[in-house]
């Protein structure tokens, strides 16, 4: 691939969710209301940013498996204060998100992409790039949550709208799969029209080291 990577790729050209298919479980299962989406955006953004930043200080010479374990332990430790704060901000939402709140802490961006991508950059560039990768997830999460909440409950942030169509299945995991699949297709079409064709067949998890 001769194309030079841009720090903004995470938002559009190489979107965390729509291109790399990373961190899709919380979107599919919990992304059915905007409030759930906001809680997950908070968890993902804080945990991923702090974990990748702290993980960048881990010595590069360690074996790959050891580094991955350290990154996962760092994010699991960052999760503890993040969850405590979340219980103050979103007391009703956290029990509803359940296990997915914890799973956000061991996402592929931290355990795989960081080592294969972020830690090969200089720290300043890494922080900017990481910011846009996180923003890429946040935008998709909120967009899908909004669409699903309108379609499934005819509400926006819990406020009732006067919608004619109500598709309650959109709140279910299968609704999440279908909406995400359609959004992936639209995203690819958008990229192909505007010149950055995303036709690769790999997910983010494939980028594991040989060492």
């Amino acid at each position, binding site marked *: 691939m001769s194309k030079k990577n841009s720090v903004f790729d995470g938002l559009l050209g190489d979107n965390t969710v729509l291109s790399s*298919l*990373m961190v*899709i*479980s919380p979107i*599919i*299962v919990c992304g059915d209301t905007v409030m759930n989406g906001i809680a997950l955006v908070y968890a993902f953004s804080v945990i991923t940013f702090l974990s990748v930043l702290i993980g960048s200080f881990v010595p590069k010479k360690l074996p*790959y*498996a*050891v580094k*991955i*374990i350290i990154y*996962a*332990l760092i994010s*699991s*430790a960052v*999760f*503890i204060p993040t*969850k*405590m704060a979340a219980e103050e901000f979103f007391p009703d939402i956290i029990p509803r998100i*359940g*296990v997915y709140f*914890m*799973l956000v*802490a*061991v996402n*592929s961006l931290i*355990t795989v992409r960081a080592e294969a991508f972020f830690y090969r950059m200089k720290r300043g560039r890494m922080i900017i790039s990481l910011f846009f990768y996180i923003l890429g997830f946040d935008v998709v999460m909120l967009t899908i949550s909004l669409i699903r909440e309108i379609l499934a409950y005819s509400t926006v942030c819990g406020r009732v709208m006067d919608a004619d169509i109500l598709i309650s*299945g959109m709140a*279910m*995991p*299968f*609704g*999440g*799969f*279908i909406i*995400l*699949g*359609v959004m*992936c*297709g*639209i995203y*690819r*079409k958008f990229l*192909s029209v505007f010149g950055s064709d995303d*036709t690769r*067949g*790999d*997910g*983010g*998890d*494939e980028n*594991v*080291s*040989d060492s």
Partner: protein
Amino acid sequence: MFLIAELVVLLTTNLILSQALGTSTLFIAAGSRKNLLWIAITITVFTTVGSAATYFIELLLPDQYNDFRLLLYTAAVGILYVLLLTVLYFADRAGFGTTRKYVHLSAFNCAVMGTLFSVSDRLSLHPTLNTMGSFMIAGAEAGTGFILAAFILTAAYRRLNSVSVPASFRGFPAMLVYLGIISMAVYALT
């Protein structure tokens, strides 16, 4: 009849079809039958042995330190990760270059971590099922469910990646919609 009932249970409690856990890993696994087999086996090892570890964590961890579960589960999977790599290294040094990739892919992902949390949340509520054996069986079942979901996806993999599918929807988008339809059918069984 017993087999049909078991199949229905395996489908309805399937972590991928009902909870979307490990979907990204599934897409990688479904790409080739060799990958599928090895990743599924490795994930099953992680979920089975990892579930045994979570049993002891749940047994020893006081309720007020519940937020430390993730850290302890991660440490348990980390130890298992190193052990499995060590075993593979000594068992087959020539093939270690290939097999370690499957371990790397399977260690920290939603399929494994999600299974550990789901199994412990489900079984610790039932005093009769709160045993190490039950935890390991539930972990193995989750791994088997992953294999089943991977085979369901593999069956349609070529068609979903064929030229008859519009370019924008070829591959991942079509697979997501396909899994959504399968998930909808499974939901109807519950």
